[in-house]
């Protein structure tokens, strides 16, 4: 039987009486509004700590160890998000996590923020502007779920503990008992799937995840379980379809986006990568990691098209990657390298000019310059630049391959031998390769 509203507020008041609360929000108005709600609900005034920055919040979690944290999602874009504080709280109080509450109260109403919060399993997500009643109801509901969980959740929790302890028979028994207690028991089915997977009964595991998704098509854990199972069996096409579904409901997780792009490339869905790029261009707030993954995927696609002879399509993708990753030397480096490999020295030179000035004295830059010269310049120029690099002890395997070949062309027998021995000394595992190139037996 559920508790009456009066009893619920009494339970919450009792819970608050011995709990420390942290309110972390850059807005003083929000902090005071939330503080008032906690006071009205029964928090002793000296048990509520108010801070305005990520750094202060992190310190407070470390030193004071609050039981309840309520934070702005975008507390500080440079230092960390509200969700980073959740990770901090779990690290500081791993045993008390079941009793702790973590709540986001934010102006950020975007689906990407909500999904990130859902993935991290926050206890509640309150949007601003808030009403006192919404905050109160949300907090009470979240606290009661922790203090008086229904039988279904208790059994799932016990089953999960048995699974972690590798007591698989007990885990399955408890989780099967939980299934009929909830009209949509996706969580229980997920943990049964996990248990089957741990026992390497993968077909049944897949069946359980799918059954969980029949009840609830956006059940995050079931989707991820299914994706990981397919990934472990290298069923890339099916895994790609699942991870696309996950990304549809849970956007903006950089780790998963990288998976989507990786699988798009493995399964050769290059058109999809170009579509992702078009959508990416419409996003105002571009996360640094997101930019990195998108650029990398564009370069990989470009390389693929170069390999198939679709040069103009490849060049378009390289242009997009270079424009998106302005100032990122590693992206330019990848493009130049691809163009060198495709024997396109003029295009490689054009991209070489895009390197940021501070990179133009680097070892990588000079080696790329050497490789381009090798494609376009006379042998004498290649050998001259190569010798200058040798003096600076700048080299790579490819450098020695080129220098040995070019020296042979110029009949510089002593130089060929010296280069082969030097290469073998610097790259001992490739000794046989260099000796064969130099025709030294």
């Amino acid at each position: 039987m559920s508790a009456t509203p009066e009893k619920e507020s009494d339970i919450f008041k009792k819970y608050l009486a011995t709990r420390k609360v942290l309110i972390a929000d850059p807005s003083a108005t929000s902090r005071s509004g939330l503080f008032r709600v906690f006071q009205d609900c029964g928090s002793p005034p000296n048990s509520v700590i108010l801070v305005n920055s990520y750094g202060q919040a992190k310190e407070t979690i470390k030193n004071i160890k609050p039981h309840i944290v309520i934070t702005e999602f975008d507390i500080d874009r440079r230092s960390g998000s509200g969700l980073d504080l959740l990770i901090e709280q779990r690290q500081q109080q791993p045993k008390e996590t079941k009793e702790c509450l973590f709540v986001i109260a934010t102006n950020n109403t975007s689906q990407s923020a909500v999904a990130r919060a859902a993935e991290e399993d926050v206890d509640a997500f309150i949007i601003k502007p808030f009403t006192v009643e919404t905050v109160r109801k949300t907090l009470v509901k979240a606290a009661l779920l922790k203090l008086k969980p229904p039988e279904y959740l208790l059994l799932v929790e016990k089953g999960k503990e048995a699974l972690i302890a590798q007591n698989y028979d007990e885990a399955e028994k408890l989780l099967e008992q939980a299934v009929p207690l909830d009209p949509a028991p996706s969580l229980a089915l997920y943990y049964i799937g996990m248990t089957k997977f741990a026992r390497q009964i993968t077909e049944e595991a897949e069946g359980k995840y799918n059954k969980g998704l029949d009840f609830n098509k956006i059940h995050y854990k079931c989707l991820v379980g299914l994706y990981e199972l397919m990934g472990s069996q290298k069923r890339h096409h099916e895994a790609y379809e699942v991870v696309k579904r996950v990304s549809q409901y849970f956007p903006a997780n950089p780790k998963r986006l990288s998976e989507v792009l990786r699988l798009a490339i493995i399964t050769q869905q290059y058109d999809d990568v170009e579509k992702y790029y078009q959508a990416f261009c419409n996003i105002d707030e571009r996360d640094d990691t997101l930019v990195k993954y998108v650029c990398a995927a564009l370069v990989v696609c470009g390389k693929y098209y170069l390999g198939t002879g679709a040069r103009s399509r490849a060049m378009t993708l390289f242009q997009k990657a270079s424009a998106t990753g302005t100032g990122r030397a590693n992206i330019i480096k990848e493009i130049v390298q691809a163009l060198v490999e495709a024997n396109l020295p003029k295009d490689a030179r054009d991209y070489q000019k895009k390197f940021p000035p501070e990179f133009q004295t680097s070892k990588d830059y000079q080696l790329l310059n050497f490789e381009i010269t090798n494609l376009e310049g006379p042998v004498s120029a290649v050998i001259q630049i190569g010798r200058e690099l040798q003096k600076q002890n700048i080299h790579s395997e490819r450098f020695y391959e080129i220098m040995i070949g070019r020296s042979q062309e110029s009949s510089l027998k002593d130089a060929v031998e010296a280069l082969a021995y030097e290469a073998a000394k610097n790259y001992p595992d490739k000794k046989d390769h260099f000796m064969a190139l130099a025709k030294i037996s």
Partner: protein
Amino acid sequence: MVNAEDVFNPKDFKSIELEISMKNLTTQTEVRPGPINTLVEIGDKMLTFEFPAKCCNIKHSVFVEIRKRLPDETKSSELCSLTGKVLEAENLTDSEMRVVVNVVQVDELSWNALLNIFDSRQAQISEFLNAVRG
């Protein structure tokens, strides 16, 4: 089958945006929409804002216009206009102040629209979180 365009939907990265302007009818000064202007709390015919510092004082009469822009909209549209009295005015920093406005006159339909836009998004979010947990 899921379309790639659905997977990476730019609308998912956008919030409901409010553009808030305020005219201080007592001093005949105006606060145009800007990043400081924020609606923090909605109460019973009471709104708590953050506005640029020194824009009003207790007992001043104000006219507030709130415009909304949803994630799938490119232009803002009028959400709610009201006149009210400043109940509380507190300078928070050199640039910001907290202002509590007691709503004196407002069109009931637009007031309800203001309440509903956030109530319905809050309900959607809570439903999503529950579904995800299962």
